[in-house]
């Protein structure tokens, strides 16, 4: 058992707001959960040792921070510092069709979404259910085509434990872009969970940047429910930190839905990153394309678990998952498990996973052309991550991210 979890259970009883009935249910479920060990399949390769007896300050912090500037993005920013919303929503100029409220204020969309999209088996999701008092509820009206990206910024500062929640409803035929932008360093624990309901024929462009580094611990998830003919295109970028664990669930609840999910993990020395993605094809004629690519630095460890589940009646599903990994040094480690669970026969499903070394022949070729070895390695290896960045539909984000990732990669190569 974990000291930390015991404290969570104690603290949970002090939370009292309009969501209390739902929180109470989550607390019941949480109480029945075992603290994960290596024998818990979902935590087979990730030790929760750093969290087990963690004791951090949990009260309000006085920190303030500016959202990182991204040129040309022109986003509507909602800034959280250590779980506390520091943006005054009432002063925001909201685009037409967008309603934003705080989680603490009762609202219809919050009631419809809170703990309703996210599966109840995620341990830390339950922790977030019982403890996250602050969050935002974003409601995109049916038919609204919202051009301006909405960004939720999450800072985690040293010494503090925080929990943040995001709920998003994209109405029928609406379009929106949501960015979850998290970062942190120093000894901190931040959980951030987001739930998305994408209505008929709606379309969501989504980004999650988990740029936590150093001693920080970040555990979170993004969970999506797609209705008939809904579309989503999501890109997840993760660093690692002392411990980063993300769970992504995409449910094809309606027919003819489409999901594209790209993710990249770039782990500096000693970082730990764990991504569990689950695609539930619960209805016919759905399509999913998932690509995960990772580069793992010295003594860093990456875990990727990509599950595709085709339910009995989900005929004519197309689902593909591809995972590619590159280990930079002998101490680097990857554990990957692409899973297929299929109960319908008229479907096309495939997955592939590779762990490969640097292509010596290509390297040699570049050297004979006079390219410096370090440079050649960067070009060869970074190329396959860069491809994912260039596939991001938002150009401003891609232009901002590409040099950041490249610099990080170059320093990973140097540290070898």
């Amino acid at each position: 058992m974990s000291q930390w979890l015991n404290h969570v259970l104690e603290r949970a009883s002090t939370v009292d707001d309009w969501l209390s009935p739902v929180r109470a249910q989550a607390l019941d479920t949480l109480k029945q959960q075992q603290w994960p060990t290596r024998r818990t399949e979902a935590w087979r390769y990730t030790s929760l040792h750093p969290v087990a007896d963690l004791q951090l300050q949990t009260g309000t912090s006085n920190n303030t921070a500016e959202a990182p500037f991204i040129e040309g993005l022109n986003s509507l920013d909602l800034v959280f510092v250590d779980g506390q919303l520091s943006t005054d929503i009432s002063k925001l100029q909201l685009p037409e069709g967008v309603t934003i409220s705080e989680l603490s204020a009762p609202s219809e969309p919050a009631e419809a979404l809170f703990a309703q999209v996210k599966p109840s088996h995620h341990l830390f999701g339950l922790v977030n259910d019982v403890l996250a008092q602050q969050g935002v509820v974003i409601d995109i009206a049916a038919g609204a085509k919202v051009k301006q990206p909405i960004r939720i910024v999450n800072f985690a500062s040293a010494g503090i434990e925080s929990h943040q929640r995001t709920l998003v409803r994209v109405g029928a035929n609406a379009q929106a872009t949501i960015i979850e932008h998290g970062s942190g360093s120093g000894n901190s624990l931040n959980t951030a969970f987001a739930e998305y309901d994408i209505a008929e024929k709606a379309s969501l462009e989504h980004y999650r940047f988990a740029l936590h580094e150093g001693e920080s611990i970040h555990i979170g998830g993004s969970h999506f429910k797609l209705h008939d003919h809904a579309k989503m295109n999501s890109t997840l970028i993760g660093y690692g930190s002392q411990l980063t664990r993300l769970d992504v669930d995409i449910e094809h609840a309606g027919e003819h839905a489409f999901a594209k999910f790209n993710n990249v993990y770039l782990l500096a020395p000693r970082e730990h990153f764990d991504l569990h993605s689950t695609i539930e094809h619960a209805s016919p004629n759905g399509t999913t394309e998932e690509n995960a690519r990772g580069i793992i630095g010295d003594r860093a460890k990456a875990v990727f678990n990509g599950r595709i589940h085709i339910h009995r009646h989900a005929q004519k599903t197309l689902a593909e998952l591809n995972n590619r990994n590159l280990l930079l040094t002998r101490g680097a480690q990857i554990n990957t498990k692409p899973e297929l669970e299929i109960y319908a026969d008229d479907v096309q499903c495939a997955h592939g996973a590779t762990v490969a070394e640097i292509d010596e022949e290509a390297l040699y070729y570049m050297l004979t052309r006079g390219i410096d070895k370090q440079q050649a390695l960067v070009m060869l290896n970074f190329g396959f991550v860069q491809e994912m960045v260039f596939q991001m539909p938002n150009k401003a984000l891609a232009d901002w991210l590409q040099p950041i990732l490249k610099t990080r990669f170059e320093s990973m190569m140097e540290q070898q």
Partner: protein
Amino acid sequence: MSEQIDQALARKYDAGFVSEIESETFPIGLDEDVIARLSAIKGEPEWMLEWRLKAYRTWLKMEEPDWAHVDYPKVDYQSISYYSAPKSMKDKPKSLDEVDPELLRTYEKLGIPLHEQEMLAGVAVDAVFDSVSVVTTFREKLEEAGVIFCPISEALHKYPDLVKKYLGTVVPRGDNFFAALNSAVFTDGSFVYIPKGVRCPMELSTYFRINEQNTGQFERTLIVAEEGSHVSYLEGCTAPQRDENQLHAAVVELVALDDAEIKYSTVQNWYPGDENGKGGIYNFVTKRGLCEKNAKISWTQVETGSAVTWKYPSCILKGDNSVGEFYSVALTRGRQQADTGTKMIHLGKNTKSTIISKGISAGRSNNAYRGLVRMGPGAEGARNFTECDSLLIGDQCGAHTFPYIESSNPTAIVEHEATTSKVSDDQLFLCRQRGLDPEKAVSMIVNGFCKEVFRELPMEFAVEAGKLLEISLEGSVG
């Protein structure tokens, strides 16, 4: 056309008869006394009994694994008899002429004549009936080459040092729940020893038959291939059609020393139960091989039987340049459940492994591939290639793939691919337009799907496997 395919799923199990043979069978139940009695009947050395008891005590503390994608009622280990032998075997027959003719007829009915002159030339057979080995053919010819091929109970008397040296070195006593149980109560099985540099002059084969009711079969096979030697071993299994579930928990250990090669082929056709899932064998098997330098172990399996299969023939690639292979066809129909695959543990440099798995699910069955490829820190330049293909026949079955890939060496390369498909209407139509009836068409398409695996089987077995598949699919199409 799917209704036509569905109809093809009516089952037929040719090996389902019961032989009327008087047997000596232990009362049901398991404790240290039962193990002692079993060991005494076999006249085993003291150390063997000790070894069994240690395994038993370990087993008592273990829990039955529940991680596999199978679902079956808990086995009551106290309701099973742990020893059964034909009475006629009490004074062990010295030659085939002394073997109970009913026993010989049983094997003949299964298509395995034990009279040497009637047999396929070049295959030596060890026939295991319930808990004991009935007869081993071609022994003299093998002895000339220095090859030992005999029941393991006999090896314990004749070659105790060899058995003691290798038993439990690849699959330790407490390796897993079923291996521990087997270590405590195994009754017979085959022992093979190929001396240094010898190429075994013929295929070796063991044929397992469960006959008695309420008995479990716990055989143990140990194959040791000395440096530079070579052997090909085949294994087949059947059981009568009964309404109760029966337990089969075997352990197979392979030791391939430097430059040796072991090819191990299985055609598993235990009784699968009826279409409603009544009866059938629980097949919980631990198979593992150890490869020293430049050695090669190749597992080929065709799994069509058993109600529940839990089986992961594995290779520990310890020596540099060693090679592991796993070729598998698993067909499930009715209510069968299979969770099978392999583990390739790469420890040595430049080790290579290939995994080709073909799963066919029909009826209301579930068929899962579960595999592990591990590249250890020392697996410099190691390579793995894995291909897992599933074929679904009908929309009431399930096909699953759970591959675990763990790598901690940057020079190792792992490639895994998995696909799923069905017998397409277009393929069926083309075959039928060319005059083939739907049943033939499906069996041809399925055979084509399995080709990469079948071609790894020794000739006689490949034919048998193809036929088995055809019979299993009979009625899958109307």
